[in-house]
């Protein structure tokens, strides 16, 4: 008779879990290194980890990688912030005024299912290989999560909260600024958080398809020139970038929404 053992009841402590994970990771990395060196895997396709790390370090020092990342981030952030600037207010307005929502609903539902990368050729047509092309693509792609979350955040504000604001005889303007915005801010942040990886993905894709610089281009170009270790180094840089952006965002979230930190921890 099969027996499934769930050690969850006596949960593995956090520290033990982290230790396990770390050891496992080191184990995997070690296997990688050895397998590549022993040519168990084709080292032209999967170079030894040490070579990748060496090249990564070199590229870091020479400024190559930081420069490419800067180039990419400049485009990405401009598109992202523009999307936030336009679509958060729009989402809030749509959440507050049902008429506006109904009017725009069809257009939104028509544009939303378009897979963002497919917009790239359009952007290429209009903007060529310029930065504007990437900014436009990111603007378009990040729009929907930002818009829909802002919209949802406003719509799902509990009626009791609104009634509370009304019973204190608040003017409509004050209700908007002092109640509606703070109450919907967690969900607005969710939209921004979801859009962050989208931003990263699209900047990489748009650089692979239509660019001469940036980290996405760098990775693809390295592959085309068969500088394989360099390609992996680029991917490592990208992973670190993604991780770093996440940390930055979470830090910002805790700063802006200090009350949320404790709340979400409690519901886990």
């Amino acid at each position, binding site marked *: 008779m099969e027996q499934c053992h769930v050690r969850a009841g006596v949960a593995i402590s956090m520290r033990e879990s982290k230790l396990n994970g770390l050891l496992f990771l080191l184990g995997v990395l070690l296997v990688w290194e050895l397998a590549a060196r022993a040519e168990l895997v084709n080292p032209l396709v999967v170079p030894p980890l040490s070579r990748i790390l060496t090249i990564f370090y070199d590229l870091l020092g020479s400024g190559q990688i930081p420069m490419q990342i800067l180039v990419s981030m400049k485009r990405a952030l401009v598109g992202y912030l523009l999307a936030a600037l336009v679509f958060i207010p729009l989402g809030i307005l749509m959440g507050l005024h049902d008429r506006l929502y109904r009017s725009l609903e069809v257009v939104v539902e028509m544009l939303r299912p378009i897979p963002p990368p497919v917009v790239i050729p359009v952007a290429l047509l209009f903007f060529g290989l310029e930065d504007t092309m990437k900014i436009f693509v990111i603007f378009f792609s990040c729009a929907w999560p930002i818009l829909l979350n802002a919209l949802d955040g406003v719509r799902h504000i509990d009626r009791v909260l609104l009634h509370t604001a009304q*019973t*204190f005889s608040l003017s409509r303007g004050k209700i908007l600024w002092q109640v509606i915005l703070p109450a919907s801010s967690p969900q607005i942040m969710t939209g921004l958080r979801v859009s962050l990886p989208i931003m990263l993905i699209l900047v990489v894709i748009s650089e692979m398809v239509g660019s001469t610089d940036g980290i996405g281009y760098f990775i693809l170009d390295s592959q085309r020139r068969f500088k394989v270790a360099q390609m992996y180094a680029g991917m490592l840089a990208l992973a670190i970038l993604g991780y770093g952006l996440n940390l930055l965002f979470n830090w910002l979230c805790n700063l802006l929404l200090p009350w949320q930190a404790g709340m979400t921890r409690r519901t886990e």
Partner: protein
Amino acid sequence: MPILEVQGLSKSYRQMGGDTTLAIGNITCAVEAGEFVSFVGPSGCGKTTLLMSIAGLLAPSSGRILVKGREISGPPPNLVLVFQEFNKSLFAWRSVLGNVRFGLQARGNRSREAEARARSLIELVGLKGFEKAYPWELSGGMQQRVAIARALAYGPEVLLMDEPFGSLDALTRLELEDTLLRLWAELRTTILFITHDIEEAIYLSDRIWVLSRRPAEIVEELRIDFARPRDQVTTRAEARFMELRNDIYQRISGEGGR
């Protein structure tokens, strides 16, 4: 002049299917300044609708509400409603102090006195030391106390309370009843209280209006004469207490369903 008057109030809703349902039948009553009055009625009889209408948050289908002789058309500035769902009513993004100060800030009062007033109320409700805590960190009873402090800091002349202690455990409820009476005695606010707990109504009030089943109408008015300050042990032990309770209970359960 009564501080609050309800004249011929009725409220009906249109349902999803298209029929209208009458939530409040015909309510006429008056509250004198400084009184503590309660509405008691069976669940679902429309008590919340009644209170929301009096608070100006719902427009009546007919009749009118007068606060200090003036008819209201929207939430009047010297009246505040404390909601039953306190966890949805408190502002999650503000600390306890931030919440309690909210009403004052809304009035444009940001002075030092406003903060001092908020702090004193926090102390009065027994939450001294918790000024910087966020609502989610507090227990249910504490949250409701914050809501009450917030309402009182605003300094309303009339305080409406919609089953404020309904979702709390029995002991917390008794504690808060006394806290409320203390505050009321000190601040001399007029309180209009709704509850389905008959004994709570008797314990707290000067007068009680018993409501019928939906559509709610006043079927009986009772004057409660127990000495103040009231005491959980002695007041409730009085013979008259039980009489009143049985009287009201029979009145309510005798109400045929409609």
